[in-house]
Protein backbone atom coordinates (compact mmCIF):
# COMPACT_ATOMS: atom_id res chain seq x y z
CA UNK A 1 0.00 0.00 0.00
CA UNK A 2 1.52 3.28 -1.13
CA UNK A 3 -0.64 6.21 -0.02
CA UNK A 4 0.59 8.81 -2.54
CA UNK A 5 0.26 6.35 -5.40
CA UNK A 6 -3.28 5.38 -4.45
CA UNK A 7 -4.38 8.94 -3.87
CA UNK A 8 -2.97 10.17 -7.16
CA UNK A 9 -4.52 7.26 -9.07
CA UNK A 10 -7.90 8.02 -7.54
CA UNK A 11 -7.64 11.72 -8.31
CA UNK A 12 -6.61 11.10 -11.90
CA UNK A 13 -9.56 8.80 -12.53
CA UNK A 14 -9.87 7.81 -16.15
CA UNK A 15 -6.29 8.85 -16.96
CA UNK A 16 -4.87 6.30 -14.53
CA UNK A 17 -5.17 3.28 -16.89
CA UNK A 18 -3.22 5.11 -19.62
CA UNK A 19 -0.53 5.87 -17.05
CA UNK A 20 -0.50 2.24 -16.01
CA UNK A 21 0.05 1.24 -19.63
CA UNK A 22 2.94 3.67 -19.84
CA UNK A 23 4.43 2.11 -16.73
CA UNK A 24 4.33 -1.30 -18.39
CA UNK A 25 6.03 0.11 -21.50
CA UNK A 26 8.69 1.82 -19.40
CA UNK A 27 9.30 -1.42 -17.51
CA UNK A 28 9.96 -3.10 -20.85
CA UNK A 29 12.15 -0.28 -22.13
CA UNK A 30 13.31 2.48 -19.79
CA UNK A 31 13.87 4.80 -22.78
CA UNK A 32 10.07 5.07 -23.08
CA UNK A 33 10.05 7.33 -20.01
CA UNK A 34 11.62 10.18 -22.01
CA UNK A 35 8.98 9.75 -24.73
CA UNK A 36 5.96 9.35 -22.42
CA UNK A 37 6.79 12.26 -20.13
CA UNK A 38 6.29 15.09 -22.68
CA UNK A 39 2.90 13.63 -23.65
CA UNK A 40 1.36 14.12 -20.20
CA UNK A 41 -0.21 17.57 -20.74
CA UNK A 42 -1.79 16.40 -24.00
CA UNK A 43 -2.97 13.04 -22.66
CA UNK A 44 -4.02 14.01 -19.14
CA UNK A 45 -4.86 17.75 -19.51
CA UNK A 46 -3.58 20.94 -18.01
CA UNK A 47 -6.66 21.72 -15.92
CA UNK A 48 -6.35 22.35 -12.20
CA UNK A 49 -6.25 19.24 -10.01
CA UNK A 50 -7.59 20.89 -6.84
CA UNK A 51 -8.11 19.35 -3.44
CA UNK A 52 -6.40 21.83 -1.14
CA UNK A 53 -3.95 20.83 1.57
CA UNK A 54 -3.30 17.11 1.28
CA UNK A 55 -0.87 14.72 2.93
CA UNK A 56 0.84 12.60 0.28
CA UNK A 57 2.89 10.16 2.32
CA UNK A 58 5.41 12.29 4.22
CA UNK A 59 4.73 15.31 2.05
CA UNK A 60 2.25 18.07 2.66
CA UNK A 61 1.04 19.59 -0.61
CA UNK A 62 -1.54 22.16 -1.65
CA UNK A 63 -3.12 20.41 -4.60
CA UNK A 64 -4.88 23.62 -5.60
CA UNK A 65 -1.47 24.59 -6.99
CA UNK A 66 -1.24 21.39 -9.05
CA UNK A 67 -2.55 20.63 -12.52
CA UNK A 68 -3.69 17.21 -13.63
CA UNK A 69 -0.52 16.76 -15.69
CA UNK A 70 1.57 17.53 -12.59
CA UNK A 71 -0.20 14.77 -10.71
CA UNK A 72 0.25 12.45 -13.69
CA UNK A 73 3.96 13.23 -13.73
CA UNK A 74 4.26 12.44 -10.04
CA UNK A 75 2.33 9.20 -10.50
CA UNK A 76 4.36 8.15 -13.53
CA UNK A 77 7.67 8.80 -11.76
CA UNK A 78 6.54 7.05 -8.58
CA UNK A 79 5.21 4.05 -10.48
CA UNK A 80 8.37 3.49 -12.46
CA UNK A 81 10.64 4.23 -9.50
CA UNK A 82 12.54 6.85 -11.43
CA UNK A 83 16.29 6.81 -10.86
CA UNK A 84 18.42 9.85 -10.11
CA UNK A 85 20.03 9.61 -13.54
CA UNK A 86 16.61 9.54 -15.23
CA UNK A 87 15.38 12.44 -13.13
CA UNK A 88 18.31 14.62 -14.11
CA UNK A 89 18.03 13.57 -17.76
CA UNK A 90 14.31 14.43 -17.90
CA UNK A 91 15.06 17.85 -16.48
CA UNK A 92 18.05 18.53 -18.71
CA UNK A 93 16.16 17.75 -21.91
CA UNK A 94 12.67 18.83 -20.86
CA UNK A 95 10.91 21.92 -22.13
CA UNK A 96 9.75 24.62 -19.72
CA UNK A 97 6.50 22.85 -18.93
CA UNK A 98 8.08 19.42 -18.50
CA UNK A 99 10.56 20.88 -16.07
CA UNK A 100 7.75 22.46 -14.07
CA UNK A 101 5.88 19.11 -13.89
CA UNK A 102 9.03 17.33 -12.85
CA UNK A 103 9.86 19.87 -10.15
CA UNK A 104 6.36 19.77 -8.71
CA UNK A 105 6.61 15.98 -8.56
CA UNK A 106 9.68 16.21 -6.35
CA UNK A 107 7.40 16.81 -3.36
CA UNK A 108 6.23 13.20 -3.42
CA UNK A 109 9.41 11.51 -4.64
CA UNK A 110 12.14 10.28 -2.30
CA UNK A 111 14.64 12.96 -1.31
CA UNK A 112 17.87 11.96 -3.01
CA UNK A 113 21.09 13.41 -4.35
CA UNK A 114 19.28 13.72 -7.69
CA UNK A 115 16.32 15.67 -6.34
CA UNK A 116 18.73 17.93 -4.43
CA UNK A 117 20.70 18.60 -7.61
CA UNK A 118 17.50 19.79 -9.30
CA UNK A 119 16.76 22.16 -6.43
CA UNK A 120 20.27 23.54 -6.80
CA UNK A 121 19.71 23.97 -10.52
CA UNK A 122 16.44 25.81 -9.91
CA UNK A 123 18.23 28.12 -7.49
CA UNK A 124 20.77 28.90 -10.18
CA UNK A 125 18.31 29.32 -13.06
CA UNK A 126 16.24 32.12 -11.56
CA UNK A 127 13.00 31.18 -13.31
CA UNK A 128 9.83 31.99 -11.39
CA UNK A 129 7.78 29.17 -12.92
CA UNK A 130 10.35 26.61 -11.86
CA UNK A 131 11.09 28.00 -8.44
CA UNK A 132 7.37 27.97 -7.68
CA UNK A 133 7.01 24.43 -8.95
CA UNK A 134 9.94 23.22 -6.89
CA UNK A 135 9.40 24.77 -3.49
CA UNK A 136 6.00 26.47 -3.32
CA UNK A 137 2.80 24.80 -2.17
CA UNK A 138 4.63 21.98 -0.38
CA UNK A 139 7.04 21.38 2.48
CA UNK A 140 9.72 19.94 0.20
CA UNK A 141 12.37 22.50 1.05
CA UNK A 142 11.98 22.02 4.81
CA UNK A 143 12.08 18.23 4.47
CA UNK A 144 15.06 18.36 2.13
CA UNK A 145 16.89 20.63 4.54
CA UNK A 146 16.16 18.23 7.40
CA UNK A 147 17.42 15.27 5.35
CA UNK A 148 20.93 16.78 5.47
CA UNK A 149 22.21 15.18 2.28
CA UNK A 150 25.87 15.83 1.47
CA UNK A 151 25.12 17.81 -1.69
CA UNK A 152 22.52 20.07 -0.07
CA UNK A 153 23.81 22.05 2.89
CA UNK A 154 22.48 24.97 4.90
CA UNK A 155 24.04 27.51 2.53
CA UNK A 156 22.06 25.95 -0.32
CA UNK A 157 18.85 26.32 1.69
CA UNK A 158 19.73 29.95 2.43
CA UNK A 159 20.35 30.70 -1.22
CA UNK A 160 17.00 29.18 -2.19
CA UNK A 161 15.19 31.26 0.42
CA UNK A 162 17.05 34.34 -0.76
CA UNK A 163 15.86 33.53 -4.29
CA UNK A 164 12.29 33.34 -2.98
CA UNK A 165 12.77 36.89 -1.69
CA UNK A 166 14.57 38.00 -4.85
CA UNK A 167 11.69 36.82 -7.03
CA UNK A 168 9.05 38.06 -4.60
CA UNK A 169 7.26 34.77 -3.91
CA UNK A 170 4.96 34.65 -0.85
CA UNK A 171 6.51 33.03 2.22
CA UNK A 172 3.24 31.33 3.13
CA UNK A 173 3.51 29.19 0.01
CA UNK A 174 6.81 27.66 1.16
CA UNK A 175 5.42 25.42 3.87
CA UNK A 176 7.37 25.27 7.14
CA UNK A 177 9.82 27.86 5.86
CA UNK A 178 9.95 29.41 9.33
CA UNK A 179 12.00 26.38 10.38
CA UNK A 180 14.67 27.51 7.95
CA UNK A 181 15.36 30.86 9.63
CA UNK A 182 18.94 31.40 10.76
CA UNK A 183 21.34 34.24 11.38
CA UNK A 184 23.12 34.00 8.04
CA UNK A 185 19.85 33.96 6.09
CA UNK A 186 18.64 36.99 8.05
CA UNK A 187 21.82 38.86 7.20
CA UNK A 188 21.32 38.05 3.51
CA UNK A 189 17.66 39.10 3.57
CA UNK A 190 18.34 42.29 5.47
CA UNK A 191 21.17 43.22 3.09
CA UNK A 192 18.89 42.59 0.11
CA UNK A 193 16.18 44.78 1.63
CA UNK A 194 18.67 47.59 2.29
CA UNK A 195 20.04 47.37 -1.24
CA UNK A 196 16.55 47.48 -2.73
CA UNK A 197 15.50 50.39 -0.56
CA UNK A 198 18.62 52.34 -1.54
CA UNK A 199 17.69 51.84 -5.18
CA UNK A 200 14.04 52.75 -4.67
CA UNK A 201 12.98 49.25 -5.66
CA UNK A 202 10.34 47.02 -4.05
CA UNK A 203 11.34 44.93 -1.04
CA UNK A 204 10.12 41.38 -0.38
CA UNK A 205 7.11 41.82 1.87
CA UNK A 206 7.91 38.79 3.99
CA UNK A 207 11.39 40.00 4.88
CA UNK A 208 10.35 41.08 8.38
CA UNK A 209 8.52 37.82 9.06
CA UNK A 210 11.69 35.81 8.43
CA UNK A 211 14.00 38.25 10.20
CA UNK A 212 11.99 38.02 13.43
CA UNK A 213 12.80 34.33 13.70
CA UNK A 214 16.54 34.94 13.71
CA UNK A 215 17.17 38.64 14.38
CA UNK A 216 20.48 40.25 13.51
CA UNK A 217 21.85 43.73 14.33
CA UNK A 218 19.47 46.25 12.82
CA UNK A 219 16.43 43.99 12.81
CA UNK A 220 14.64 45.59 15.76
CA UNK A 221 15.06 49.10 14.38
CA UNK A 222 13.83 47.85 11.03
CA UNK A 223 10.69 46.32 12.55
CA UNK A 224 9.89 49.37 14.64
CA UNK A 225 10.35 51.57 11.59
CA UNK A 226 8.03 49.24 9.72
CA UNK A 227 5.20 50.13 12.10
CA UNK A 228 5.24 53.65 10.64
CA UNK A 229 5.46 52.61 6.99
CA UNK A 230 2.80 53.97 4.64
CA UNK A 231 2.17 50.58 3.07
CA UNK A 232 -0.42 48.47 4.92
CA UNK A 233 1.28 45.22 4.00
CA UNK A 234 4.63 46.37 5.31
CA UNK A 235 3.07 47.48 8.65
CA UNK A 236 1.22 44.17 8.95
CA UNK A 237 4.46 42.23 8.40
CA UNK A 238 6.29 44.39 10.96
CA UNK A 239 3.55 43.88 13.54
CA UNK A 240 3.50 40.13 13.00
CA UNK A 241 7.27 40.04 13.23
CA UNK A 242 7.27 41.91 16.53
CA UNK A 243 4.76 39.39 17.87
CA UNK A 244 7.11 36.55 16.90
CA UNK A 245 10.08 38.41 18.35
CA UNK A 246 8.31 38.45 21.75
CA UNK A 247 10.31 41.27 23.37
CA UNK A 248 8.36 42.98 26.22
CA UNK A 249 10.62 46.04 26.16
CA UNK A 250 9.26 46.92 22.71
CA UNK A 251 5.65 47.13 23.91
CA UNK A 252 5.90 50.88 24.45
CA UNK A 253 6.62 51.49 20.76
CA UNK A 254 3.56 49.49 19.77
CA UNK A 255 1.43 51.34 22.33
CA UNK A 256 2.57 54.64 20.84
CA UNK A 257 1.55 53.53 17.37
CA UNK A 258 -1.73 51.89 18.36
CA UNK A 259 -4.04 54.98 18.43
CA UNK A 260 -2.85 56.06 14.97
CA UNK A 261 -3.02 52.65 13.29
CA UNK A 262 -5.99 52.67 10.87
CA UNK A 263 -6.11 48.94 10.05
CA UNK A 264 -8.07 46.83 12.56
CA UNK A 265 -6.10 43.62 11.88
CA UNK A 266 -2.83 45.42 12.61
CA UNK A 267 -4.27 47.03 15.75
CA UNK A 268 -5.34 43.58 16.96
CA UNK A 269 -1.78 42.30 16.60
CA UNK A 270 -0.26 45.31 18.34
CA UNK A 271 -2.60 44.76 21.30
CA UNK A 272 -1.32 41.19 21.63
CA UNK A 273 2.34 42.18 21.95
CA UNK A 274 3.84 41.12 25.29
CA UNK A 275 4.49 43.68 27.98
Amino acid sequence: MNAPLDLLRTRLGEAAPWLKDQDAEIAADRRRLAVAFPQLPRKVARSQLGGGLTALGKALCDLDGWRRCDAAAALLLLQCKVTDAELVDLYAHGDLEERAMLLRSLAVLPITAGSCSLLLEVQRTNMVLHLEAAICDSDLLARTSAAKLPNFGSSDVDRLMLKVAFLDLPLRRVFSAEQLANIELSRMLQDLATEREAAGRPVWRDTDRMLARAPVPGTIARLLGGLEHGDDGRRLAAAEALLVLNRPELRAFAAERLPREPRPEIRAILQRLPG
Partner: protein
Amino acid sequence: MLIFEPHIHMYSRITDDYERMALAGIRAVLEPAFWLGQNRTNVGSFVDYFDTLIGWERFRSQQFGIHHFCTMGLNPREANDDRVNDAVMEILPRYLEKDSVLGVGEIGLDDQTPKEEKYLLAQLLLAKKHDLPVLIHTPHRDKKKGFLRCIDMVKESGVPMHRVLLDHGNEETIKITRETGCWQGFSIYPNTKMDPHRMVQIVLEYGVERVIINSAADWGVSDPLMVPRTATRLEQAGVARERIEQLVWKNPLGFFAQSGRIDEAALLRPANSNLRETFEGNSVLRGQDPDRV
Protein backbone atom coordinates in the same frame (compact mmCIF):
# COMPACT_ATOMS: atom_id res chain seq x y z
CA MET B 1 -3.97 41.50 -38.80
CA LEU B 2 -2.37 38.59 -36.95
CA ILE B 3 0.58 36.89 -38.62
CA PHE B 4 1.97 33.39 -38.15
CA GLU B 5 5.58 33.36 -39.38
CA PRO B 6 5.97 29.68 -40.29
CA HIS B 7 9.71 29.49 -41.03
CA ILE B 8 12.26 31.62 -39.25
CA HIS B 9 15.51 30.83 -37.43
CA MET B 10 15.24 33.07 -34.39
CA TYR B 11 18.28 31.32 -32.90
CA SER B 12 20.33 33.64 -35.09
CA ARG B 13 18.31 36.83 -34.54
CA ILE B 14 18.45 39.52 -31.86
CA THR B 15 15.84 40.83 -29.44
CA ASP B 16 15.26 43.93 -31.60
CA ASP B 17 13.91 41.57 -34.25
CA TYR B 18 11.46 40.05 -31.79
CA GLU B 19 10.24 43.48 -30.77
CA ARG B 20 9.79 44.69 -34.36
CA MET B 21 8.07 41.44 -35.31
CA ALA B 22 5.60 41.79 -32.45
CA LEU B 23 4.89 45.40 -33.46
CA ALA B 24 4.28 44.26 -37.04
CA GLY B 25 1.60 41.82 -35.89
CA ILE B 26 3.57 38.58 -35.76
CA ARG B 27 1.90 36.60 -32.99
CA ALA B 28 3.49 33.19 -33.54
CA VAL B 29 6.66 31.85 -35.10
CA LEU B 30 7.75 28.39 -36.14
CA GLU B 31 11.47 27.69 -36.04
CA PRO B 32 12.57 24.65 -38.03
CA ALA B 33 15.68 22.88 -36.82
CA PHE B 34 18.34 23.61 -39.42
CA TRP B 35 21.98 23.76 -40.40
CA LEU B 36 23.92 26.26 -38.29
CA GLY B 37 26.21 27.51 -41.05
CA GLN B 38 28.85 24.94 -40.27
CA ASN B 39 28.62 21.21 -39.67
CA ARG B 40 28.37 19.89 -36.12
CA THR B 41 30.99 17.34 -35.16
CA ASN B 42 29.02 15.27 -32.65
CA VAL B 43 25.45 14.53 -31.63
CA GLY B 44 25.84 16.50 -28.40
CA SER B 45 25.78 19.71 -30.41
CA PHE B 46 22.41 18.68 -31.82
CA VAL B 47 21.08 17.84 -28.37
CA ASP B 48 22.06 21.27 -27.08
CA TYR B 49 20.51 22.93 -30.13
CA PHE B 50 17.26 20.98 -29.84
CA ASP B 51 17.09 21.81 -26.13
CA THR B 52 17.54 25.48 -27.04
CA LEU B 53 14.62 25.32 -29.48
CA ILE B 54 12.22 23.94 -26.88
CA GLY B 55 13.65 25.93 -23.98
CA TRP B 56 15.62 29.12 -24.15
CA GLU B 57 14.44 30.31 -27.57
CA ARG B 58 10.82 29.69 -26.64
CA PHE B 59 11.29 31.60 -23.41
CA ARG B 60 13.01 34.46 -25.26
CA SER B 61 10.17 34.68 -27.75
CA GLN B 62 7.49 34.65 -25.08
CA GLN B 63 9.07 37.65 -23.44
CA PHE B 64 8.01 39.65 -26.50
CA GLY B 65 4.51 38.18 -26.57
CA ILE B 66 5.27 35.85 -29.48
CA HIS B 67 4.29 32.18 -29.31
CA HIS B 68 7.19 29.98 -30.34
CA PHE B 69 6.95 26.58 -31.98
CA CYS B 70 9.45 24.47 -33.85
CA THR B 71 9.95 21.43 -36.02
CA MET B 72 12.66 18.89 -35.37
CA GLY B 73 14.72 16.96 -37.85
CA LEU B 74 18.06 16.12 -39.38
CA ASN B 75 18.71 18.70 -42.11
CA PRO B 76 19.84 17.40 -45.51
CA ARG B 77 23.29 18.96 -45.38
CA GLU B 78 24.23 17.09 -42.23
CA ALA B 79 22.42 13.98 -43.36
CA ASN B 80 25.56 13.56 -45.44
CA ASP B 81 27.78 13.68 -42.36
CA ASP B 82 28.46 10.26 -40.85
CA ARG B 83 29.73 11.81 -37.63
CA VAL B 84 26.19 12.73 -36.67
CA ASN B 85 23.47 11.37 -38.99
CA ASP B 86 22.63 8.03 -37.31
CA ALA B 87 23.00 9.43 -33.81
CA VAL B 88 20.60 12.29 -34.55
CA MET B 89 18.04 9.80 -35.84
CA GLU B 90 18.29 8.00 -32.50
CA ILE B 91 17.51 11.06 -30.41
CA LEU B 92 14.72 12.43 -32.62
CA PRO B 93 11.81 10.31 -31.24
CA ARG B 94 12.16 11.92 -27.83
CA TYR B 95 12.05 15.44 -29.27
CA LEU B 96 9.18 14.68 -31.63
CA GLU B 97 6.93 14.24 -28.57
CA LYS B 98 7.65 17.69 -27.18
CA ASP B 99 4.59 19.88 -26.95
CA SER B 100 5.98 22.79 -28.98
CA VAL B 101 7.21 20.53 -31.77
CA LEU B 102 4.59 20.77 -34.52
CA GLY B 103 6.25 18.74 -37.21
CA VAL B 104 9.28 16.99 -38.64
CA GLY B 105 11.58 19.41 -40.43
CA GLU B 106 13.28 20.93 -42.08
CA ILE B 107 14.20 17.72 -43.79
CA GLY B 108 14.62 17.16 -47.50
CA LEU B 109 17.23 17.34 -50.19
CA ASP B 110 20.09 19.72 -50.82
CA ASP B 111 22.85 18.17 -52.94
CA GLN B 112 20.41 15.33 -53.73
CA THR B 113 22.73 12.53 -52.66
CA PRO B 114 21.75 8.93 -51.84
CA LYS B 115 22.42 9.61 -48.16
CA GLU B 116 20.08 12.62 -48.17
CA GLU B 117 17.41 10.40 -49.69
CA LYS B 118 17.99 7.69 -47.08
CA TYR B 119 17.48 10.05 -44.16
CA LEU B 120 14.61 11.92 -45.83
CA LEU B 121 12.71 8.67 -46.20
CA ALA B 122 13.53 7.57 -42.66
CA GLN B 123 12.24 10.88 -41.31
CA LEU B 124 9.07 10.76 -43.40
CA LEU B 125 8.38 7.42 -41.72
CA LEU B 126 9.10 8.98 -38.32
CA ALA B 127 6.53 11.68 -39.11
CA LYS B 128 3.96 8.98 -39.77
CA LYS B 129 4.82 7.22 -36.54
CA HIS B 130 4.51 10.41 -34.46
CA ASP B 131 1.49 11.63 -36.43
CA LEU B 132 3.15 14.91 -37.40
CA PRO B 133 3.13 17.05 -40.55
CA VAL B 134 6.35 17.49 -42.50
CA LEU B 135 8.29 20.60 -43.53
CA ILE B 136 10.48 19.82 -46.51
CA HIS B 137 13.47 21.91 -47.53
CA THR B 138 13.93 21.74 -51.29
CA PRO B 139 17.26 22.18 -53.07
CA HIS B 140 18.45 25.61 -54.12
CA ARG B 141 20.38 24.08 -57.02
CA ASP B 142 18.79 21.81 -59.64
CA LYS B 143 15.55 22.77 -57.89
CA LYS B 144 12.97 21.39 -60.31
CA LYS B 145 14.49 17.92 -60.29
CA GLY B 146 14.76 18.09 -56.50
CA PHE B 147 11.12 19.06 -56.14
CA LEU B 148 10.03 16.15 -58.31
CA ARG B 149 12.21 13.75 -56.32
CA CYS B 150 10.83 15.02 -53.00
CA ILE B 151 7.27 14.48 -54.24
CA ASP B 152 8.10 10.96 -55.38
CA MET B 153 9.63 10.15 -52.00
CA VAL B 154 6.63 11.51 -50.12
CA LYS B 155 4.42 9.24 -52.20
CA GLU B 156 6.76 6.32 -51.53
CA SER B 157 6.58 6.94 -47.77
CA GLY B 158 2.80 6.97 -47.63
CA VAL B 159 2.64 10.36 -45.91
CA PRO B 160 -0.52 12.06 -47.23
CA MET B 161 0.23 15.08 -49.41
CA HIS B 162 -1.96 17.39 -47.34
CA ARG B 163 0.42 16.85 -44.42
CA VAL B 164 3.46 18.01 -46.41
CA LEU B 165 4.79 21.55 -46.88
CA LEU B 166 7.27 21.82 -49.75
CA ASP B 167 9.24 24.95 -48.97
CA HIS B 168 11.42 27.42 -50.87
CA GLY B 169 9.25 27.34 -53.97
CA ASN B 170 9.30 29.70 -56.94
CA GLU B 171 7.47 30.48 -60.19
CA GLU B 172 8.54 27.17 -61.71
CA THR B 173 7.84 24.86 -58.81
CA ILE B 174 4.28 26.04 -58.20
CA LYS B 175 3.42 24.62 -61.60
CA ILE B 176 4.52 21.23 -60.27
CA THR B 177 3.11 21.38 -56.77
CA ARG B 178 -0.31 23.01 -57.17
CA GLU B 179 -1.92 19.82 -58.42
CA THR B 180 -0.29 17.45 -55.93
CA GLY B 181 -2.35 18.42 -52.87
CA CYS B 182 0.69 19.42 -50.81
CA TRP B 183 1.20 22.86 -49.24
CA GLN B 184 3.49 25.24 -51.10
CA GLY B 185 5.94 27.41 -49.20
CA PHE B 186 7.68 30.55 -50.48
CA SER B 187 10.63 32.08 -48.65
CA ILE B 188 10.68 35.83 -49.22
CA TYR B 189 14.23 37.14 -49.25
CA PRO B 190 15.65 40.60 -49.92
CA ASN B 191 17.57 39.40 -52.99
CA THR B 192 17.35 35.68 -53.69
CA LYS B 193 14.78 32.84 -53.40
CA MET B 194 11.58 34.94 -53.76
CA ASP B 195 10.84 38.64 -53.28
CA PRO B 196 7.65 40.53 -52.30
CA HIS B 197 6.97 41.79 -55.82
CA ARG B 198 7.27 38.33 -57.38
CA MET B 199 5.15 36.89 -54.55
CA VAL B 200 2.38 39.36 -55.35
CA GLN B 201 2.41 38.15 -58.94
CA ILE B 202 2.18 34.52 -57.82
CA VAL B 203 -0.79 35.26 -55.55
CA LEU B 204 -2.53 37.21 -58.31
CA GLU B 205 -2.04 34.31 -60.72
CA TYR B 206 -2.53 31.27 -58.48
CA GLY B 207 -4.42 32.50 -55.40
CA VAL B 208 -3.68 31.54 -51.81
CA GLU B 209 -5.09 28.03 -51.53
CA ARG B 210 -2.49 25.88 -49.70
CA VAL B 211 0.07 28.66 -50.16
CA ILE B 212 2.29 29.69 -47.24
CA ILE B 213 4.82 32.53 -47.13
CA ASN B 214 7.75 32.94 -44.75
CA SER B 215 10.90 34.99 -44.29
CA ALA B 216 13.21 32.02 -43.59
CA ALA B 217 15.30 34.69 -41.86
CA ASP B 218 18.54 33.32 -40.43
CA TRP B 219 22.17 34.36 -39.98
CA GLY B 220 22.46 35.47 -43.60
CA VAL B 221 21.19 38.57 -45.40
CA SER B 222 17.51 38.17 -44.64
CA ASP B 223 14.63 40.12 -43.13
CA PRO B 224 12.33 38.85 -40.35
CA LEU B 225 9.64 41.32 -41.46
CA MET B 226 9.27 39.90 -44.95
CA VAL B 227 5.84 38.39 -44.23
CA PRO B 228 4.27 41.67 -43.03
CA ARG B 229 6.06 43.51 -45.86
CA THR B 230 4.58 41.13 -48.41
CA ALA B 231 1.14 41.38 -46.80
CA THR B 232 1.32 45.17 -47.23
CA ARG B 233 2.34 44.79 -50.89
CA LEU B 234 -0.54 42.40 -51.48
CA GLU B 235 -3.04 44.84 -50.03
CA GLN B 236 -1.61 47.63 -52.16
CA ALA B 237 -2.02 45.36 -55.19
CA GLY B 238 -5.72 45.05 -54.42
CA VAL B 239 -5.80 41.59 -52.85
CA ALA B 240 -8.71 41.33 -50.40
CA ARG B 241 -7.80 41.40 -46.71
CA GLU B 242 -9.55 38.08 -46.09
CA ARG B 243 -7.28 36.39 -48.62
CA ILE B 244 -4.19 38.01 -47.13
CA GLU B 245 -5.31 36.88 -43.69
CA GLN B 246 -5.73 33.36 -45.04
CA LEU B 247 -2.20 33.51 -46.45
CA VAL B 248 -0.40 34.82 -43.38
CA TRP B 249 -2.47 33.36 -40.54
CA LYS B 250 -5.07 30.74 -41.41
CA ASN B 251 -2.93 28.76 -43.82
CA PRO B 252 0.16 28.23 -41.63
CA LEU B 253 -2.07 27.68 -38.63
CA GLY B 254 -4.16 25.17 -40.56
CA PHE B 255 -1.13 23.28 -41.77
CA PHE B 256 0.63 22.99 -38.42
CA ALA B 257 -2.63 22.44 -36.51
CA GLN B 258 -2.57 19.01 -38.12
CA SER B 259 -0.11 18.15 -35.35
CA GLY B 260 -2.95 18.39 -32.83
CA ARG B 261 -0.65 20.45 -30.60
CA ILE B 262 -1.85 24.02 -31.20
CA ASP B 263 -4.33 25.70 -28.90
CA GLU B 264 -5.75 28.16 -31.42
CA ALA B 265 -7.64 30.14 -28.78
CA ALA B 266 -4.39 30.70 -26.87
CA LEU B 267 -2.79 32.21 -29.98
CA LEU B 268 -5.38 34.98 -29.98
CA ARG B 269 -3.67 36.34 -26.87
CA PRO B 270 -0.01 37.41 -26.74
CA ALA B 271 2.32 34.84 -25.22
CA ASN B 272 3.29 35.26 -21.59
CA SER B 273 5.69 38.16 -21.51
CA ASN B 274 6.64 38.33 -17.86
CA LEU B 275 9.85 40.29 -18.20
CA ARG B 276 10.88 39.51 -14.63
CA GLU B 277 11.63 35.95 -15.60
CA THR B 278 15.09 34.84 -16.56
CA PHE B 279 16.20 31.55 -17.96
CA GLU B 280 19.05 29.44 -16.63
CA GLY B 281 20.69 32.43 -15.05
CA ASN B 282 20.42 34.56 -18.18
CA SER B 283 18.13 37.55 -18.27
CA VAL B 284 17.26 39.27 -21.50
CA LEU B 285 16.81 42.35 -19.37
CA ARG B 286 20.34 42.10 -17.99
CA GLY B 287 19.34 43.54 -14.64
CA GLN B 288 17.04 46.29 -15.88
CA ASP B 289 13.91 46.98 -13.91
CA PRO B 290 11.11 45.38 -15.94
CA ASP B 291 8.63 47.98 -14.81
CA ARG B 292 10.66 50.67 -16.54
CA VAL B 293 11.19 48.92 -19.86
